[in-house]
């Protein structure tokens, strides 16, 4: 599904930023975030030239946008100069002269050639093969040009620093208009000297760049027009690089028709500049677009313009236009895949993205929604004519669209596509996949024949080595979504669970379902489809048992939880995060986990603490402690206290909230903000694990059952902590601050201020210390 989320911008309207030569539409925050799911990879075209322009939510399909184009032509330049010297100068020597040598070194080389016998210092120059060129005029023309180019370089290669404090350190040379004008004057004179058109073309390039940078757009265009014949002789990179500056100049003068035409020529003919030309192409009004179209000198040029429009705005319209111009055009393939991928936004949805309520016509997510019928008709028509360069693309596209339209002719189109693309594994597997999707679409859940027939193909999808770009993962997700819907409809909650959980949906924690899942796992005579479904379930028997046990544990049904854990080996073996029967004045779960306390050695120390090595031990200890209340009434207070600690520590606020964690359950509110949350800031009631009520009950029971003031003080303080936790989750909206003294702080102060423990609390607990020192 293609999602478009438009974000509202700064109130303030949307702006258009212009960066030299390249026009970037800057949308502020008013941008589109989108992602796409597809069964139709554009790579079926094996198109390389225009692969960057396959459909994608990103600026480019293959690569990311570049921040600098400065080095794009380095290799080509060396290659072209190599041809100029008929390969008599080594590439590395050319590279040194062109990109590394200082202007002074170029002068030295010139002197060396002119005054034979006088050699420059430095090995790089001494051994440079340009000095060995017999036709010294050829070498000198080159060196004079390079000297000139190096003087132009600071203007031509300057990359604008956007932040003032960056650019202040590095003065912008482009403000030096007189410097550029002097170079223009010098260049115009100097370019008459060389005998070779090749070098003259390069002077023209330098001059056009200077005109463009200094914003002399009229001069730039006039000079380009004057030198056009020269630039088109012995066509090389200069033809397109100069054309780029001319296009920029036209754009600067708002002559969009011509600017866009030139950009389209570069886009079509120059591999290196294709992407930047594409980004620069911006028709503004219908009039200038029509002007551009009228400038096209051939059907091919016209088709290129339509292709560019297709990439930017309207793939299907362009597809029709280009097909009308030339059915054999190689510009059709990319636009065909774009049109299909865009159309998929109407009917392909990712798992769970479309509810059955939204799609009531079908139990499936896909075939209930229709794509563009005009596109479907057109693709069928072209496929039928078989008059394109790659008919298989059209047959595959027609087959795919036919299938999505529940048109049974899809199989015939796919069969034709296979016969036309012999040995093309991506196309063949696409055809096979569409066949499988159709089978699943039409199959009946619970029908043994259907189930058995799809297993081999599902396994093929799952484990076979597929060609690159084959949409295995999306197909797999889609199929699981389809199957889970189908089994839900016939009331097979087990298979529904297998397939929906395979797509990362949460398991429904209903006891009856979990029991069924257990039985299904234990079932002896599974069919191959049963086994396949079970293989997709991301839960083992142990996981299912633990989910059930944890649900019982948090209903405080300790015995039942224990019995459940005993049903699977190794269930409940996770170690505790800290000692679940230990508590402190200030909670420090990580300290408990590390086995030490930052505070007094053993604030609630006890020699008869239950030993807990895992979750099962903890539950067993709770069972034992419950039993001990009756069996050992003498130590009732102490037992109540330990039970209270257990209840406290298994809650969100305790050191073993991880007891709740299983593959399907976890405590939310990990980032619970004690200073912020109130009843008004959450929509739903607080989950049960945020409640310390049970712990509080037991602290009060312990307090009542004891005669020791010290012990009572401890119980009372812990009750106060439970009371404070309640406050955190029920704070009135307008309450300022993060603490309110409750009933048990009052009791502590009134009744236990003479205990040692009271002094400890004053020392450790800032809230209480503040409260105790107040006059309340």
């Amino acid at each position: 599904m293609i999602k478009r989320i438009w974000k509202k911008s700064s109130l303030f309207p949307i702006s258009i930023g212009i960066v030299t030569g390249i026009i970037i539409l800057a949308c502020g925050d008013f941008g589109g975030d989108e992602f796409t799911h597809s069964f139709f990879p554009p790579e079926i075209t094996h198109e390389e030239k225009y692969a960057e322009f396959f459909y994608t939510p990103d600026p480019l399909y293959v690569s990311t946008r570049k921040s600098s184009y400065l080095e794009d032509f380095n290799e080509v330049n060396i290659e072209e100069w190599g041809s100029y010297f008929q390969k008599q100068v080594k590439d590395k020597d050319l590279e040194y002269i062109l990109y590394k040598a200082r202007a002074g070194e170029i002068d030295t080389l010139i002197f060396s050639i002119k005054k034979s016998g006088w050699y420059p210092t430095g090995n790089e120059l001494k051994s440079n093969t340009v000095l060995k060129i017999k036709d010294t005029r050829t070498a000198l023309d080159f060196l004079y040009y390079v000297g000139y180019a190096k003087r132009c370089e600071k203007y031509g290669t300057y990359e604008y620093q956007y932040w003032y404090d960056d650019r202040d350190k590095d003065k912008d040379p482009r403000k030096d208009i007189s410097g550029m004008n002097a170079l223009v004057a010098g260049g115009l004179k100097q370019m008459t000297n060389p005998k070779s058109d090749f070098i003259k073309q390069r002077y023209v390039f330098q001059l056009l760049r200077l005109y463009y940078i200094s914003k002399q757009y009229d001069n730039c265009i006039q000079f380009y027009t004057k030198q056009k014949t020269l630039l088109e002789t012995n066509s090389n990179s200069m033809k397109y690089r100069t054309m780029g500056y001319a296009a920029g100049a036209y754009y600067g003068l708002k002559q969009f028709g011509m600017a866009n035409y030139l950009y389209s020529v570069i886009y079509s003919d120059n591999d290196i500049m294709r992407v930047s030309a594409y980004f620069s192409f911006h028709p503004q009004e219908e009039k200038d677009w029509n002007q551009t179209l009228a400038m096209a000198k051939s059907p091919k040029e016209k088709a290129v313009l339509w292709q560019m429009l297709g990439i930017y705005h309207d793939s299907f319209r362009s597809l029709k236009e280009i097909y009308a111009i030339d059915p054999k055009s190689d510009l059709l393939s990319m636009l065909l895949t774009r049109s299909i991928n865009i159309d998929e936004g109407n009917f392909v949805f990712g798992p769970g993205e479309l509810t059955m309520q939204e799609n009531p016509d079908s139990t499936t997510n896909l075939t209930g929604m229709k794509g563009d019928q005009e596109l479907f008709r057109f693709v069928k028509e072209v496929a039928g004519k078989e008059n394109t360069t790659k008919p298989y693309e059209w047959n595959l596209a027609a087959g795919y669209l036919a299938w999505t339209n529940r048109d049974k002719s899809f199989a015939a189109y796919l069969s034709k596509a296979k016969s036309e693309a012999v040995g093309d594994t991506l196309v063949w597997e696409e055809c096979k996949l569409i066949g499988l999707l159709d089978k699943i679409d039409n199959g009946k859940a619970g029908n043994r024949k259907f189930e058995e027939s799809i297993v081999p193909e599902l396994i093929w999808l799952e484990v076979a080595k597929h060609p690159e770009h084959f949409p295995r993962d999306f197909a797999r997700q889609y199929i699981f979504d389809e199957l889970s819907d189908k089994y839900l409809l016939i009331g097979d909650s087990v298979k529904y669970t297998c397939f929906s959980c395979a797509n990362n949906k949460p398991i429904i924690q209903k006891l009856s379902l979990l029991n069924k899942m257990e039985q299904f796992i234990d079932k002896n005579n599974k069919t191959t489809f049963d086994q396949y479904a079970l293989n997709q379930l991301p839960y083992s028997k142990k996981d299912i048992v633990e989910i059930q046990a944890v649900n019982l544990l948090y209903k405080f049904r300790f015995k039942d939880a224990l019995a459940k854990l005993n049903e699977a080996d190794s269930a409940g073996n996770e170690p505790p995060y800290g000692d679940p029967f230990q508590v402190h004045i200030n909670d420090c779960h990580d300290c408990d986990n590390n086995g030490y306390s930052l505070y007094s050695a053993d604030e609630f120390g006890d020699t008869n603490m239950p030993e807990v090595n895992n979750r099962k031990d903890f539950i067993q200890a709770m069972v034992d402690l419950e039993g001990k209340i009756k069996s050992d009434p003498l130590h009732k207070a102490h037992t109540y206290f330990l039970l209270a600690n257990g209840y406290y520590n298994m809650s969100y606020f305790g050191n073993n909230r991880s007891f709740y964690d299983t593959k399907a359950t976890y405590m939310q509110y990990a980032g619970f903000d004690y200073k912020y949350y109130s009843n008004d800031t959450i929509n739903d009631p607080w989950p049960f694990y945020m409640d310390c009520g049970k712990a509080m009950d037991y602290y009060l029971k312990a307090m009542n059952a004891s005669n020791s003031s010290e012990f009572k003080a401890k119980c009372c303080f812990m009750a106060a902590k439970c009371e404070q936790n309640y406050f955190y989750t029920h704070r009135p909206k307008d309450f300022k601050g993060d603490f309110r003294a409750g009933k048990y702080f009052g009791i502590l102060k009134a009744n236990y201020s003479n205990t040692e423990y009271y002094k400890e609390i004053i020392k450790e607990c800032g809230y209480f210390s503040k409260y105790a020192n107040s006059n309340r």
Partner: protein
Amino acid sequence: MSMSRRKYLNGCLFIVTLIIAVSCRHPRINADKAFYYWRSNFSLSEKDKSYLQNVAVSKLYLHFFDVSWNDEYNKVLPVDEIKFDSTFTNTFQYVPVVFIANKALDKTPLDSIDELSRHILNEVSHIAGANNVNFKELQFDCDWTDGTRRKYFDLLTYFHKEMNQAGKLLSATIRLHQIKYAEKTGVPPVDRGMLMFYNMGKINSVPGYNSIYNTRDANNYASHIASYPLPLDIALPVFGWAICVREGKVTGIIEKAVDKDFSDTSMFSSGGTDIFVSHKAFFFHGKYFMKNDTVKLEQVTPDLCKSAAENAGRYLKDERRTVTLFDYDSIYLTNYDKKDLEKIFSLSN
């Protein structure tokens, strides 16, 4: 007492009550009157100056630049920097405004916020210094999110310190949802807030629904204004735009659009009040229209703006503030006469 006498007395009482009620509802303290100036080239002709002075405008908020993320350069950069022409004088009080796109904050690591702040500060100082713009207040505009709040507030903290040391004020634009959910969205660490009393609804293609300003949306939020902890200036809309819609989805906006822009019947036909439908595919104002695309024109008329002003006045605390209009653009302002503007600036109807 005769019946007629009783009626007269009741009438007097009614009038007195009404006057008191109106006095309570509308702040009496004179506001500083201002405009946002949101064009990239700052140029005020003598005619502009006398127009502004005639309606007693003393302050202009100048869009200095945007701070945005540039995909191509992979950097946070300033764009759309203001350019001043040679006629600039300090006739008015000026408040530089910097818009920060959320993506720019998203892409800046928290520990680089100070560096970004320095860049922005130097940029503002450079533009102001190079053009002799004196200012006593700097404003930031950002529709911060949960994800960018911390970074944005750190940036504001940096500027708050810098501005206060320089004896200047720092303000930030506040959207209505940030007022209503202040606990959740946080209150920016600035001296004043500029409440944007518009763009509160969802931009959509529903005919008759004005997403720039409509009373129903405003009232959903407005009752929270009085309890907002920052002193508030207020910005009211005097602008319009055209919303471009394809198959029910908004595809873009054409700024500063008026109905005559869509009068070419070879391209558009009327689809109802303020609605235009394209009957073929074409380029138009840099955008591409497909057949059956819809354009919905939204404008804030003087009456609607007066209603917004009156509504805002009802909820704002009675204190001195700036009332500013967005934005200074003759296309729409020609519809407003002096009396309209006086009423709007006074937040009364």
